[in-house]
């Protein structure tokens, strides 16, 4: 390895999106302090930041390793970066009206969201465990603060405290896992860890423990069963538009790291088959647990939290038989999940106006006729989450199941199918309540929220249109994965 740690221009270009995001966040904070008159423009400004970061990630980040192999960019990380930024943009659009309504509009919200995005995009490109950890902390600390952003309501504080306490605990797990792997393999770089494991260096038990701790850590961020307990409480109390971001982006970034870790751990011949079992087990538990628990929820946000648990379970199916094609299903699934989940939370932001109260599904009764467009968006997102064609959500599920069948894990696909049948029941209940029940609660008249509507409408429309005409997106993903060589 090169002894020189000099930073080249190419290295700086490789973190251009993060520099841009961090700079934009800092600028927004300063504007908040010195030019408060500009507050109204914060959402458009932060959108410029996310879109600009997306553009930089698309055009300027050089493919291949940078910072002496600490980071590694390729078409897949580019796609994941775009998914994270898509979720951030949708959440920012949905947040504007909410923040104004609650009198919370300030630069901190936007800055924290942008910094958290920077942490995620950095983490999913990181090829070195300490960088992963730093990025993880960057994104997590911003998320803890955002979860409790609505200072005046008690549930928000509960949401933040629960998320923070468990998150801090899990960070320690991750750090211990990194330490164990470093101790046994002599490196914190993922490729070198893989090489050491392949050579059978170090104690197998300690290495296995290290990997398990890392899986637990990222399983927590992805809210997999049995690490999911924080998510319903946090989703319920945290600002709804922020949950559109929280429920998607950190999961996308975490699954990228999880895949790298599982791939590296599979380099060790004696351990390789075990990881497939562990991942399958997590997938089955999450799919069944998430869906069954979602069945009994009366609060829309809690239901979506458990549904998110189940969705991460589906997402793990391709990891159980990890190969290059797993990326195709993972990327398409994440893209679909980002759109439909962010869309669902965007509509929830628009429909429920008392953040401190419960978001009861039954309150939506009959609103399908009062808010035809918003309800149609919510219904489309629900059907897509349920995996019903012709939506993008169906394509995601289809690819995941196809991957399982292709890799002789038809039983895993069968469990997935069974679980999604359970899922259909509660997603459909939202449609039922919207259109088939009489109104029980008159909605409070609110000022129009153009950006919020835009966020919901865009997500629902893309879910439907890309479901009908998925050729280009799927073609791009398949090409990107094939180009990896």
């Amino acid at each position, binding site marked *: 390895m090169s002894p020189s740690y000099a930073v080249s221009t190419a290295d700086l270009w490789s973190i251009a999106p993060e520099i841009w995001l961090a700079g934009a966040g800092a600028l927004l904070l300063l504007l908040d302090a010195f030019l408060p008159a500009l507050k109204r423009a914060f959402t458009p400004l932060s959108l410029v930041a996310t879109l600009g970061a997306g553009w930089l990630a698309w055009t300027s980040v050089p493919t291949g390793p940078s910072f002496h192999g600490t980071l590694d960019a390729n078409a897949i990380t580019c796609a994941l970066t775009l998914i994270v930024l898509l979720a951030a943009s949708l959440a920012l659009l949905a947040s504007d009206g909410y923040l104004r309504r609650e009198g919370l509009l300030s630069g901190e919200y936007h800055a924290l969201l942008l910094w958290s995005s920077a942490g995620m995009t950095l983490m999913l490109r990181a090829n070195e465990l300490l960088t992963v950890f730093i990025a993880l902390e960057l994104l997590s600390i911003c998320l803890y603060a955002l979860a409790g952003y609505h200072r005046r309501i008690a549930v928000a504080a509960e949401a933040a405290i629960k998320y923070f306490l468990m998150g801090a605990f899990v960070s320690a797990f991750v750090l211990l896992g990194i330490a164990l792997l470093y101790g046994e393999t002599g490196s914190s770089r993922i490729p070198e860890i893989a090489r050491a494991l392949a050579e059978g260096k170090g104690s197998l038990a300690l290495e296995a423990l290290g990997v398990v701790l890392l899986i637990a850590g990222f399983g927590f961020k992805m809210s997999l069963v049995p690490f999911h307990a924080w998510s319903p409480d946090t989703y319920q109390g945290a600002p709804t538009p922020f949950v559109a971001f929280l429920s998607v982006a950190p999961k996308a970034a975490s699954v990228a790291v999880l895949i790298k870790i599982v791939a590296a751990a599979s380099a060790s011949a004696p351990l390789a088959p075990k990881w497939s079992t562990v991942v399958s087990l997590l997938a089955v538990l999450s799919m069944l647990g998430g869906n069954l628990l979602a069945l009994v929820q009366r609060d829309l946000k809690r239901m979506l939290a458990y549904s998110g648990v189940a969705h991460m379970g589906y997402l793990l199916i391709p990891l159980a038989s990890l190969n290059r094609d797993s990326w195709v299903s993972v990327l398409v699934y994440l893209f679909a999940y980002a759109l439909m989940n962010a869309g669902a939370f965007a509509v929830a932001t628009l429909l429920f106006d008392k953040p401190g109260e419960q978001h009861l599904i039954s309150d939506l009764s009959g609103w399908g006729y009062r808010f035809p467009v918003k309800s149609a968006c919510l219904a489309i997102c629900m059907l897509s989450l349920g995996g019903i064609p012709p939506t993008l959500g169906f394509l995601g599920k289809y690819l995941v199941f196809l991957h399982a069948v292709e890799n002789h894990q038809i039983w895993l696909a069968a469990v997935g199918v069974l679980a999604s049948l359970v899922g259909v029941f509660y997603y*459909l209940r939202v449609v039922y309540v919207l259109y088939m029940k009489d109104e029980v609660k008159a909605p409070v008249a609110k000022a129009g929220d153009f950006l919020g509507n835009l966020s919901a409408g865009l997500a629902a429309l893309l879910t439907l249109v890309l479901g009908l005409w998925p050729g280009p997106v799927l073609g791009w993903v398949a090409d990107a994965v094939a180009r990896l060589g």
Partner: protein
Amino acid sequence: MDTFLQLLAGNTLTRLIFFPALACLPLLFIRRDGAARAYALLVGLIEAAFGIGLVWANWGSPFPLLRDGAPLPWIPSWGIQYSVGMDGISMPLVLLSVILLPIVVIGSWEGIHKNWQGFALSLLLLTTGILGALLALDLFLFYIFWEVMLIPMYLIIGIWGGQRRVYAAVKFFLFTMAGSLLMLLAILWLAWTYKEMAGAWSFAFADLLRLQLPASEQAWLFGAFAIAFAIKVPMFPLHTWLPDAHVEAPTGGSVILAGILLKLGTYGFLRFALPLFPQASQRYAPLMAGLALVGILYGALVAWVQADMKKLVAYSSIAHLGFVMLGLFAFDLMAWQGALLQMVNHGLSTGALFLIVGMIYERRHTKEFAQFGGLAKVMPWFAFFLVFSTLSSVGLPGLNGFVGEFLILAGTFTSKSIALRGVAATATFGVVLAAVYLLKMVAATIWGPIKHEENRSLKDLSWREKLLLAPLCLLMLWIGVAPEPFLAPSRPALAAVLTSYQARVTEIPVNTVALRPEAPLSEVALGVQPPGPVAAEARQ
């Protein structure tokens, strides 16, 4: 994409499938009930004209295999194509669907009291789903259309239905979804197997038909397809969603459900399950025929004890579809012809019966026999249409039902298997039972003295209602008196499918998956080769 738009603009199957869905876009801006209703009727009539025109232009025996040119790539990375075709087997069902569409709109004219915009949207999307599923020649495409049918029907039952509508709608949805997810797994498995053998992804029906599967795999896959289709038919013991759905659905929904949706199940067996898994079909034929027989007798006996007209007609559907399934699993040309004709017959007669029950329900807000009696005196036209449709459903010679049932039973009875002959003989009792329960309904409602005073003032059918039932009854009579023009176009197609099926049954079983040589779809599963110029002209 360009080619697709060209197809959409031309006189093609593509236009037939997607016109109702595209017609939904202007409908989004038509909020008033009256306007939405009129618009739906207009679209229905245009769609019917498209459908009848397309069939008329190619009418003849054999009915040619119509394709919309070469299949178009839809999701190229996974070999998924947009590929549609119509032959003599799908043609009668397509025709039935497009004829029923305007009839359903007129039939719901007064019965749907709220949100016509939503009802029309659901109805039109449902039509696109139905036609797409009937015409799809790519299994992925078929699955998508199959599922597209679900949501609109769920909404139709759940929003415009009766008292227990939500229970019925959810039950319908979950039953169907459970079956179709199994089918999805089976489709994935087939496509993957094809990829392993041929090296490239494909969901095209023609490609998947080349797979020669070992017995055990065939059994599993046949099972998955059979459960999905048997739920739709519905076959005993997977029928329990049907009475609920029918009783709760609004009249228009019941007509579509009984008239067309159930046929998708039997069509699925004939088009996909039997040709793809011939040896498994043969092996499980006794089971399927047995279940069909149970369905015939069970449906009839349960219908007998119903006190509600709509429930009675719903259970009679189970019995009638039992005949269709029996005909399919007899593997005999005559029985298959009877089965195909009986699918149409059931659509006509049960459709008419549901409309008639809807008409009396709109007047009296009850469907129980006990509330009626002697209606023939006050509503002679109503009595006429009820008796006419009932006799068609019973299978009176001279009307359509007789032709279908006769062909099925005769075809089944001529089979070599003694057991199958026994089944056919026993199934004949089903015909007797049908007469018992249907005539019981007729007797209780329109004959005898007028028992309830409020029935004296009931208005007879309006011109709208007569106009609605007249074409259905005319078709029943026409098919009953002169069935040959209806049988002839599809005969060659059925014969071709049967021949290739029998050739596949007698193939030497394989232990590992093998690939048959490529053969044109028209020779193995879709009837006849298009006689060049005629088909080409129709595609212009």
